[in-house]
């Protein structure tokens, strides 16, 4: 890629492909650079050589250390030339070569001479070059000149010094701080850009002195700032200052708001936009404050310039997340943007409209989107599909038109990812909106009639097999499924056979028909299809007339009960012999990492898989595992399972993590253990728990693990009793006890074994363990509908915190609740924040929390906590959690 032009040798004959750098080569150019050393400099030839060097560097060519040093030294000779054009190139070249410290010394004196030159252009450039390549030691020598340059009457020189100051401030702040008088003077400059650079530098010099900043901003907002760029900066500083002080003065008048509002009438678009954006980002902005900003943005929406339209719609899109109602006045303008040439603008317009839309406007919106969908790229379509999915969950009553929309785009052209996003959305809607089920299944049936993706076909068939038999008229799905058996490839045919069998097992009236269909499949050309058909026929045959046995249903609908990874490895190890493969020999122990893997994929995971969403898989897997243990069967419904908590350091002999399962009156610790020593076999593995720091808990039973082989994880359980419905907390210390046996890896024989112990880290049960993260779609409605009967409000000081962000996430973690409406995101530099949380507390009590945070100068954080729930005791409990956390 370094010589893109060399590769074009074959079309040399094309006249317009001619380049002045055609066939250029590094070695030849380096040779040419020797002219720099001539005693009689030919400035034209020297310029030519430098341009060629710059060209090579720009194309990504690299010079070796020796080459670079060589070029650098010869370039320094060019300072002798009086040719100003050549001098400019020399400056550029020195910056590109970024010489090392001992080389810098060579040019220092030349550059310092230029810094004091009578020619402004030399002064400005020499300052920029010298400040770029120099280190701290030299700075003290040139500081005097830099201070002078800042107040130079030539604006280019002043800007060069100020911008260099901004860069030097990062590495040598103490030097630059001494310049504030000069910088202050430069702010008054009549040159626009000098004012901009001076303001930026002065603000950074004083950034830790809030009082000085406030004074600076206040005086400038009253004065005249000439450059639009400087005005934009001032707006940023003013809104920062406003954020910082808003928490203290809750009188209603927001400092600097009048200034921001006045900037909305500035003649430069960049300033009006900056001000409008700043207003929308004020924390806790009111609708009245928003209105003038929205009006400006609305005007931009109709601009002929794409950049303006984009900037406006992007800002409105953000406002829509927090204040959807305040921008409903722009809906008509945004609808016209759906057909915008710029697809980024169109997509932003759609997703904004989907957020602001109310129930009545959905139908009209859908009609417009339908036209738009045909001519945008798949990546944009996926964004739209996701927005529609969340809209549908927000307005379940509108499922019919949204579902129809999804099915119509499902029929159109599109790639796999896009189709998958649509199918996933339909499946989620079917799951969450019961009324939409039949309609949705029907759309999926239609889709597989003409689906080119085997993966999607088999997933849908599986889903149909699970959901279809439970509908009011299962028979209508049979035709769609059987069509697949006739028309598709072997993988899909096999999936269809399984789906048919499920209908046969559940719906007795359909059984004879299913039988006939399955019998036809016995003559299929593919082994797998024939095998499945034979298997299912035999299973269903047992009781053609009577009710199908539970084992059959269990076989068809239940999962294998063994982790697939374990089954796969057991099958690979199985040697064909007289003895048939025994599925019970497969280890049932879930590798804990497979669960965490699933979790990490949960966002992208396909919701069609066996039990729908993967989040559900996670919980379902636990539920199934626990209910298979008879001792736990009378504990009732599992309320919540925690994420695994590691109890050992990484890479120790035994790796153990714990999952806490919460029941109404019980708590079960599931210890997932892995033995990482190949020469050892552990037997009788159990965990001894000391509950002296957890008084409300009493140990009920412990379920040891018989044996723990190398690298195949196993679980041991300990169950406790606790008072009903109460969020008891405590600290549990754990010791792993086991009999360790030495194993000879070659023979597999083991010795007698000795008892041993291994200290694990403590497990803590906190109040957050009793809280299930359950979001609400419309917090305001939920908040009002729950009422203030059980409301509890109090204020807390949280002490000194790194940032507001850190404080907010700490409180969310302590409470273990679900943040709503994206309020967990705290914008940088904001001084106050409101966070909305929802959850379900043990005993199935719905809880809503509104947190208001504020941070002051020395990083002291204060918080107001308002809780509403369905029970007073729970509201109090939440306060207790915070008070003790």
């Amino acid at each position, binding site marked *: 890629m370094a010589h893109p032009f060399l590769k074009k040798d074959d079309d040399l004959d094309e006249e317009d492909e001619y380049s002045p750098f055609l066939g250029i080569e590094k070695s030849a150019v380096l040779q040419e650079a020797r002219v720099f050393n001539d005693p009689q400099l030919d400035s034209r030839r020297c310029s030519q050589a430098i341009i060629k060097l710059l060209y090579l560097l*720009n194309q*990504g060519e690299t010079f070796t250390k020796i080459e670079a040093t060589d070029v650098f030294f010869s370039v320094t000779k060019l300072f002798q030339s009086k040719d100003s054009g050549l001098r400019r190139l020399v400056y550029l070249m020195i910056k590109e070569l970024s010489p090392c410290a001992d080389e810098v010394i060579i040019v220092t004196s030349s550059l310092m001479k230029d810094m004091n030159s009578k020619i402004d252009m030399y002064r400005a450039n020499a300052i920029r070059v010298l400040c770029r390549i120099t280190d701290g030691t030299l700075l003290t020598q040139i500081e005097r000149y830099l201070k002078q340059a800042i107040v130079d009457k030539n604006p280019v020189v002043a800007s060069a010094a100020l*911008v260099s100051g*901004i860069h030097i401030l990062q590495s040598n702040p103490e030097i630059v701080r001494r310049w504030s008088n000069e910088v202050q003077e430069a702010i008054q400059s009549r040159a626009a850009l000098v004012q901009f650079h001076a303001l930026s530098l002065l603000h950074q010099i004083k950034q830790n002195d809030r009082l000085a900043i406030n004074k600076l901003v206040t005086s400038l907002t009253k004065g005249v700032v000439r450059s639009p760029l400087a005005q934009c*900066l001032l707006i940023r500083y003013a809104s920062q200052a406003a954020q910082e002080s808003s928490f203290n003065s809750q009188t209603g008048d927001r400092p600097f708001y009048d200034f921001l509002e006045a900037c909305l009438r500035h003649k430069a678009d960049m300033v009006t936009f900056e001000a409008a954006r700043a207003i929308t980002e004020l924390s806790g902005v009111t609708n009245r404050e928003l209105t003038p900003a929205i009006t400006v943005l609305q005007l931009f929406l109709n601009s002929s310039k794409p950049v303006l339209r984009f900037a406006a719609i992007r800002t409105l899109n953000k406002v829509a997340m927090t204040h959807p109602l305040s921008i409903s006045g722009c809906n008509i303008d945004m609808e016209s943007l759906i057909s915008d040439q710029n697809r980024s603008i169109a997509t932003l317009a759609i997703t904004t409209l989907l957020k602001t839309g109310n129930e009545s406007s959905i139908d009209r919106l859908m009609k417009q989107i339908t036209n738009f969908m045909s001519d945008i790229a798949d990546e944009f379509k996926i964004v739209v599909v996701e927005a529609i999915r969340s809209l549908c969950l927000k307005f379940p009553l509108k499922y019919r038109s949204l579902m129809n929309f999804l099915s119509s785009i499902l029929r159109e052209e599109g790639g796999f990812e896009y189709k998958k996003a649509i199918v996933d959305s339909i499946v989620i809607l079917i799951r969450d909106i019961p009324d939409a089920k039949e309609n949705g299944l029907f759309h999926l049936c239609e889709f597989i009639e003409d689906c080119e993706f085997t993966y999607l076909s088999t997933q849908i068939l599986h889903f149909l097999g699970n959901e279809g038999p439970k509908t009011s008229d299962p028979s209508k799905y049979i035709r769609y499924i059987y069509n697949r058996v006739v028309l598709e490839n072997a993988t899909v045919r096999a999936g269809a056979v399984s789906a048919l069998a499920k209908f046969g097992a559940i719906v007795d009236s359909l059984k004879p028909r299913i039988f006939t269909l399955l019998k036809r499949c016995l003559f299929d050309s593919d082994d797998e299809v024939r095998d499945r058909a034979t298997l299912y026929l035999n299973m269903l045959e047992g009781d053609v007339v009577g009710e199908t046995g539970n084992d059959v249903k269990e076989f068809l609908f239940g999962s294998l009960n063994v982790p697939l990874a374990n089954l796969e490895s057991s099958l690979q190890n199985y040697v064909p012999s007289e003895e048939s493969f025994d599925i019970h020999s497969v280890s049932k122990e879930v590798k804990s990492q497979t669960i965490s893997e699933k979790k990490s994929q949960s966002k992208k995971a396909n919701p069609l898989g066996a039990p729908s969403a993967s989040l559900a898989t996670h919980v379902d897997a636990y539920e199934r595992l626990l209910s298979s243990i008879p001792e736990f069967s009378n504990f009732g419904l599992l309320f919540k399972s925690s994420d695994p908590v590691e109890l050992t350091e990484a890479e120790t002999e035994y790796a153990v993590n714990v999952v806490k399962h919460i029941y109404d009156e019980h708590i079960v610790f599931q210890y997932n253990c892995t033995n990482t020593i190949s020469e050892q076999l552990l037997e009788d593995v159990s965990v001894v728990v000391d509950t002296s720091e957890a008084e409300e808990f009493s140990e009920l039973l412990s379920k040891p693990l018989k044996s723990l082989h190398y690298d195949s994880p196993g679980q041991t359980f300990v169950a406790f009793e606790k008072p009903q419905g109460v969020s008891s907390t405590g600290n549990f210390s754990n010791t792993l006890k086991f009999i360790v046996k030495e194993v000879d890896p070659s023979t597999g024989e083991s010795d007698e074994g000795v008892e041993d112990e291994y200290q694990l880290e403590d497990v803590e049960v906190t109040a957050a363990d009793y809280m299930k993260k359950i979001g609400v779609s419309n917090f305001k409605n939920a908040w009002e509908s729950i009422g203030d009967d059980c409301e509890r409000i109090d204020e807390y000081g949280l002490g000194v915190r790194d940032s507001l962000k850190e404080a907010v996430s700490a409180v969310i973690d302590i409470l273990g609740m679900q943040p709503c409406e994206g309020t967990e995101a705290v914008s940088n530099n904001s001084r106050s924040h409101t966070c909305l949380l929802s959850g379900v507390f043990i005993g199935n009590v719905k809880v809503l929390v509104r947190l208001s945070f504020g941070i002051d100068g020395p990083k002291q954080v204060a918080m107001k906590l308002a809780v509403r729930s369905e029970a007073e005791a729970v509201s109090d409990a939440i306060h207790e959690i915070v008070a003790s956390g």
Partner: protein
Amino acid sequence: MDSCPLVKNILLLDSEGRRVAVKYFSDDWATQGAKLAYEKSVFMKTLKTNARTEAEISMFDGFVVVYKFVNDLHFFVTAGEEENELILSSVLQGFFDAVALLLRNDVEKQIALENLDLILLCIDEIVDRGIILETDADTIAGKVATNGVDGSVPFSEQTISQALATAREHLARSLLK
């Protein structure tokens, strides 16, 4: 430099996405490969748009890019996604117009390569390590043109004979290669 507007790169590519002149001001792209990959993806994503009359804008991978095309040259300016789009567009406009002035409205790849020194100096006068130096096309072109920075004669108002002289000088230079 928390709240100062920052430019991450300025790119000038040809109609096949190859470099004419590029300058990176941030370390978001650490290697030459990352830079080339970014240029390719920007070029491909904007290729089909019509950015010839008005500057266009796009957002991807956490960057905002404004761009404008003329003849076989594609101009791009990139910044972080939180940047004020209009500030960015003023940088692009300054770059675009200054190049047009410097190339005497003959804005195409061939001429740009023949005057590569002017293009590189032009970028150097617009942004210094990410900080915007100047956005006014006349001033930029005036600083690049070798007759000094005192700005007594705005570049666009040079007399015909002056302009011709500069043009002749550049033409001669490229012929003498």
